[in-house]
């Protein structure tokens, strides 16, 4: 996702002269071309995210569209109060792009993971929170985020994400996107782990279970209609996220469903109120924390068992 995003922001700066790139010692890759080709519209604030966020909000006030890019953990956790007070409270037209959500920072360890960012960010009034599933979702997401007037946060993955879209993503802010149609259970997921959910759903299909997979790439504002409609149809809901089970996508989906639909089953898969204290590749870590495609498949079976014969 990193390379796709960097190309997308480079292209966007060529198309829109109001876009200003702000970085915090995070201008590698294609950003070096931005420094070369648009030197007047890129500012490196060094390792100082707080200052970057407040200064970015002032640029927004003056009519620029600042796009801030930093490691997700430093941006959301270090600069949280600045995002709250300077961006959200005052509805500044600023865009945040946090690199490396979930446990994709793999061997860098727990200080570099962001497994509570959805919880932290989705409670902020007036913030639009986006979470791309795969690289093809990024250029369209960035373009729509820049067209949208107001603070937007994009929680980006990093590398080696599986592509889930064949052509281009149908992404719209506030719209969930059905990746696979099904009738027995709905899996709501966000971020790159949706590819694992999709793998599990396809395996379940072979076992005679029809699982619907819905990409919640806008975590806020949540597409309540899509969630209600699918849950009404399947009555079995499973949410999958690379995030603490507290306050994340599962919680958000539960808030929508609560009191509205009589479900047969509901389960939130994620990190069980723990930091990811282990090391390994991204897929290794997900396996260690019971978030692999096999774990998701097992959970689907658990929820459907008793309801129908599993092949």
């Amino acid at each position, binding site marked *: 996702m990193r390379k796709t995003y960097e190309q997308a922001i480079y292209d966007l700066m060529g198309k829109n002269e109001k876009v200003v790139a702000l970085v915090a010692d995070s201008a590698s890759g294609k950003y070096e071309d931005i420094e070369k080709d648009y030197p007047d519209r890129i500012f490196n604030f060094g390792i100082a995210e707080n200052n970057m966020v*407040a200064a970015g909000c002032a640029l927004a006030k003056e009519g620029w569209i600042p796009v801030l890019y930093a490691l997700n953990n430093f941006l959301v956790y270090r600069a949280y*109060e600045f995002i709250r007070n300077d961006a959200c409270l005052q509805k500044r037209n600023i865009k945040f792009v946090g690199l490396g959500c979930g446990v994709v920072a793999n061997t860098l360890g727990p200080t570099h993971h962001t497994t509570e960012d959805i919880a932290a960010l989705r409670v902020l009034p007036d913030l639009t929170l986006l979470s791309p599933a795969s690289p093809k979702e990024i250029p369209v997401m960035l373009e729509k985020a820049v067209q949208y007037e107001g603070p937007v946060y994009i929680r980006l993955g990093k590398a080696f994400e599986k592509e889930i879209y064949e052509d281009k993503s149908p992404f719209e802010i506030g719209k969930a996107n059905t990746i696979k149609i099904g009738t027995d259970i709905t899996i709501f997921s966000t971020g790159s782990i949706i590819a694992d959910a999709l793998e599990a759903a396809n395996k379940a299909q072979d076992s005679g279970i029809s699982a619907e997979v819905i990409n919640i790439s806008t975590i806020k504002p949540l597409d309540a209609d899509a969630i209600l409609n699918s849950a009404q149809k399947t009555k079995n809901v499973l949410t999958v996220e690379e995030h603490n089970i507290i306050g994340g996508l599962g919680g958000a989906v539960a808030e929508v469903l609560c009191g509205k639909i009589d479900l047969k089953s509901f389960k939130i898969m994620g990190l069980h109120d723990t930091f990811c204290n282990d090391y390994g590749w991204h897929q290794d870590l997900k396996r260690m924390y019971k978030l692999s495609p096999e774990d998701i498949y097992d959970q689907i079976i658990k929820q459907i068992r008793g309801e129908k014969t599993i092949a």
Partner: protein
Amino acid sequence: MIDLYEKALDLRRKIIKTCYLGRGGHIPPSLSSIDIMNALYFGGILKYDSKNPNWENRDRFILSKGHAALGIYNVLCDAGFFKREDLYTFCKPGTIFGAHPTPSIPGIEAATGALGHGLSFGVGLALSAKMKKQKHLIYVITGDGECQEGSIWEAAMSISKFGLNNLIWIIDHNKWQATGKVSETMEIEPLDEKIKAFGLEPVVVDGHDYKQLIDALSVDRSNLPKKTRVIIANTHKGKGVPFIEDKREWHSKIPNNDEFKIIINELGLTEEEFQKL
């Protein structure tokens, strides 16, 4: 030009009146910084149009120490940004005037009060002016205790790196913070040397002396200083009211009725005159 000392006394009285009506806000930090704001708005320093608060060529003023809201509200009110009857809804249900300012108020650029934000906000405003080749200036007042926030020094580094000599940073150096003396809570001295070390130009003034203030705040717009000017304004918390001046317990205390009487008396008003303000 108006007599700034006379205007300052008038503003101090109105600060007390506003607090008296709303029973909120912070009197002493408003009194320590009021002479700086008086000089900016009524001493011919700032370019502004109170009938068009968002005039593109206005100078931008940021009160980073938002707890001095009682001060900036009364200055903006007398400058014509809003009516006194509106300001006198201060801290009451339905008002836009709280103990810390927000941009709902005409003339306020940013919500401040959470310390360590305003100088960084000023950095963005100054960067934008440079990018657009605009000639207006950016004035930011921070507190001295506020300089304990790390973001202040992040901002200072970036002011220097980006060459933001269109920004003037004023430190209301009243030597006190919420719960005690700055020097005892967390020493920030030597402030001037720290500022120098960050590549900025400190100027130390008496923050209650209008000649010194006007000299320091005046910037030759056609020939901006090479290094960003940082005015360390030595002030007294609660200045003008001996009853509360330099007293620890008064940071955010609201006087009771007896204490208001003493304060009103010290500001040279009878109660009748005070009620008419």
